């Protein structure tokens, strides 16, 4: 199947799979949050440059704040790695 033949759901599945976001690996939450933050920042810049969609701009800024908050908490809760030299 070519990309142009994909349904909307199949396209969404492919995009999320390629981004590693269908089922996030347990040790990759911090990286995936950072990836999503980058996408939101790109969109926020576009909204500031091309659009006057104030509501979407506010919503994107709020999502960015949520992602930053989650990133800090997830990083703070990372279990300490065992030192291989101790084994």
């Amino acid at each position, binding site marked *: 199947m070519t990309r142009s033949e994909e349904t909307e759901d199949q396209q969404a*599945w492919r995009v999320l799979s390629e981004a590693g*976001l269908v089922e996030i690996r347990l040790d990759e939450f911090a990286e995936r949050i950072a*990836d*999503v933050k980058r996408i939101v920042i790109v969109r926020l810049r576009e909204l500031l440059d091309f659009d006057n969609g104030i509501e979407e701009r506010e*919503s994107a800024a*709020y999502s960015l704040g*949520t992602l930053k*908050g989650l990133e800090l908490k997830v990083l703070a809760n990372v*279990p300490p790695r065992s030192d291989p030299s101790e084994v």
Partner: protein
Amino acid sequence: MQSIAEKLRSEAQWPPEEGEVLSFTTSVGSETATLKEVRWGLVWRDFILEDGRVIPEHRIAGCPQPQVWRKMDEVTDDEREDCEERLLSMAGSGMDPRQRDQSFWAELNQYLAYTYLRYKQASGRVQDKVQETER
């Protein structure tokens, strides 16, 4: 391969009902458990088991293909904001998303998937518009 009759039957009976025993895949193989509830997340359906685990629809045996996902514009602002509050509250209470198949893991997965799709699609549309105006 599933026959057309089997496919139609499984789609007509989908999703399973509360109390049914489901088969699903885990990180270590296949397992069965009793379904408590089926709930839509921001993108896909989650199957909540009686033991509290949350299994995404695509890991349930017999799930019709292709799966039906929500459209981004079906998700209301209130729904998204409620999800964001729940996530921040779970993170703030010290819950760890690295506990696979638990509610924080499931909800954070869906939130990140939703947010990525939402802003990536919107950015794609803007890029298309920019390219059109430059032609």
